[in-house]
């Protein structure tokens, strides 16, 4: 194996590792742009993963599995929406509760299949012409169809937010719900729709993990905390979908660095430290972004985390 091919393989793998982060973080962006924080993301990813596993193995259709995973995430998000929007519960508390609930439920459902492998999944889809560009081709264009879907989702989310009437309304709901309400928009309906859409995408993220990264169910290790990384990524990306891609791949590289250095036989840095790297990166990025006056809360929707109560006066 040559030096470059290890690099290329690592970067190609980093793309795969970053993909669930893209799905989940775009979900986070959509929900938070509506003004609702979703700390239940990790739970939604786990539920998505276990559902995908069961449906895929039952039907033999990875497509059905993927969709079912998203739906499961969306259902969990519906609970979050009910608590946070209709009952105006504290969003931090009910998001955390939902992660705990989702984790518990996933391990309960997944008990009989603990340790089993996935039988059918997506293969790689080589894009003609593009995939034969040296370097870039094998990294970007010999991926599976879901990687391409994640790019599409980010692009659509970006256009939706910035270029459509509904996107404008969504942003208004997250920035200034009282004004949106006065303009005749339904704050509650908009928030429900986008929290559920966010859950769908988080579920997709979980599905991707089981379909393409660790194709076996293990209740402890399937998502491995990447729901939390996705949350940090939302902040890192300043609530902008296209920046999510960049951040996700950065984390993808950090997550892959571990294996790459081992493959090259470099052991100066202990493997445990490398495994810690992505989480350390999360903390460092959040500290840097919040410590800097200019970037603190840059791009954060003004009404994030605040329940909406119509003021009669």
């Amino acid at each position, binding site marked *: 194996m040559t030096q470059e091919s290890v690099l290329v393989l690592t970067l190609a793998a980093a793309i795969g590792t970053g993909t669930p982060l893209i799905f989940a973080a775009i979900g986070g962006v959509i929900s938070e742009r509506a003004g609702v924080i979703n700390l239940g993301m990790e739970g939604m990813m786990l539920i998505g993963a276990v559902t995908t596993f069961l449906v895929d193995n039952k039907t033999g259709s990875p497509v059905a599995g993927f969709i079912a995973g998203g739906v499961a995430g969306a259902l969990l998000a519906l609970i979050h929406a009910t608590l946070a929007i209709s009952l105006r519960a504290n969003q931090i508390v009910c998001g955390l509760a939902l992660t705990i609930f989702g984790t518990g439920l996933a391990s309960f459902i997944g008990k009989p299949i603990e340790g089993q492998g996935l039988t059918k999944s997506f293969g790689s889809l080589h894009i003609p012409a593009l995939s034969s560009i040296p370097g870039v081709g094998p990294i970007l264009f010999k991926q599976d169809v879901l990687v391409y879907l994640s790019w599409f989702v980010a692009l659509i989310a970006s256009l939706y937010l910035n270029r459509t009437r509904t996107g404008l309304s969504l942003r208004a709901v997250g*920035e200034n719900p009282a004004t949106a309400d006065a303009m005749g928009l339904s704050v509650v309906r908009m928030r429900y729709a986008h929290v559920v859409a966010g859950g769908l995408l988080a579920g997709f993220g979980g599905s991707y993990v089981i379909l393409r990264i660790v194709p076996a169910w293990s209740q402890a290790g399937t998502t491995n905390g990447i729901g939390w990384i996705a949350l940090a990524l939302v902040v890192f990306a300043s609530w902008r979908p296209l920046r999510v891609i960049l951040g996700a791949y950065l984390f993808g590289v950090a997550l892959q660095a571990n294996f790459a250095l081992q493959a090259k036989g470099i052991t100066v840095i202990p493997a445990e430290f490398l495994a810690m790297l992505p989480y350390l990166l999360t903390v460092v990025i959040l500290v840097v972004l919040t410590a800097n006056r200019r970037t603190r809360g840059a791009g954060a929707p003004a009404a994030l985390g605040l329940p909406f109560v119509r003021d009669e006066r």
Partner: protein
Amino acid sequence: MIAARHISKSFPGVLANQDVSFDVAPGEVHSLLGENGAGKSTLAAILTGLYQPDAGHVEIDGVRVSLKSPRHGLALGIGMVHQHFRLVSQFTVAENISLGDRKQNWILSTKKVEEAVREIGERYGLPVDPRARINELTVGEQQRVEIIKTLYRGAQVLLLDEPTSVLTPQEVTTLFDSVRTLASEGKSVIFISHKLGEVMDISDRVTVMRDGKVVGNTSVTDTSREALARMMVGRDVDLSAIRATKPTGTPLLEVRGLTAKSARSQVSDASIVVKAGEIVGIAGVSGNGQRALAEGIAGLTPPVGGHITICGIDVTGKGSVAARKAGLSYVPEDRNGTGLAPSLSISENMLLTEDLPFLVNHKSAVAKAEEAIGAYSIKTPGASTPTRMLSGGNVQKVLLARELGHDPQVLIVASPTWGLDVGAVEFVRSKLNELRNQGRAILLISEDLDEVRALSDRIYVIFEGKIVMECAGEGADVTTLGLAMAGASA
């Protein structure tokens, strides 16, 4: 064009509108004049469809309508600019105007909106950059955006709720020009205000409201300021200028080169002197550093630079307790919040600024509070009522009673009559005058230029945190002050 017919509306405990009727003709500027709490905003909310009347109805072009929502009202050509703007401050002007507009395609095309904003702006003298973000605009410009928004949606009747309260005198002039242009094109403008001068200036007809009822309806040519004032208050009032009658004494408050910061407010290198027996006004548009100035002097925020002397004692950087001990009292603009603890009772609030023994004697506190309630004629069920239950005027009286109870040598008051009814305004002003005559030094910070001019012996103008002008209160020229407030003379 639009008419109210026998409209009544009540809120828990208040009859906000009682059998209100009035007519507005096309091309007419019709003022709704009344004190705070007279029911003007409530009536406006009913005319736009925000509230539903308990009885009576609205007519448009002689046809009875039942407005279900502001959106419905706007569809029928009735638009309103609220006292508090309904704009998303992170959005651009064009985005705000597109928000909730069903004429927009699903894929936004702000180009057309930008065109329309420019066109409407030119036609009615409301210039504003359609691509600017709201939070980059002045309050006056934001108001233009609100007006353009309703015109863009095709409003034929425009309601303006207290539109001048946030403007400099120059901005008021341009607003009035736009209003006249609108009227000349056959649109009706309903102008809501409690300021007599403006009402006399801009209106064709005036409907006067008091305690939820219509107490007068007249053409401006058939009335006078005095007659309108009498209708509005129900008795004769005297809000004419009051000046110092005695010569002023030694400086009691000296601020030299103060630089300080407080939440979103900043003052830099401000020098101010207030002598015994003098009221000194700080004029300026809201948000130009008034808060930092007041809190800096009161020791609530540590000064970054400069010196503060109260009654000859240097209190720079020594905190609020030292400032109080030196003889200062501060009546902040934010009465229930900074001034008083809203959930505490009147008597407890009265205790807050005292040196208390470890065990509090509630009986004597209640007795003291009751004394103040009598002396200031505070309307309350009792001394143990939380201050948040009181109306604006009574809250202000509690605060004044507490602060004046310390017999301060120097008093800082911020917007002391904001939101008060005329009776309470008279009371507060006479209290300030009384203190002046007793040889105290008073710093009056207010956005209400009329008030600053009516009370001050000397005036400073503050703009973007700097003192940009100083002049005598007697005969101070509105135009010059207004220009300084807008930063023109800086």
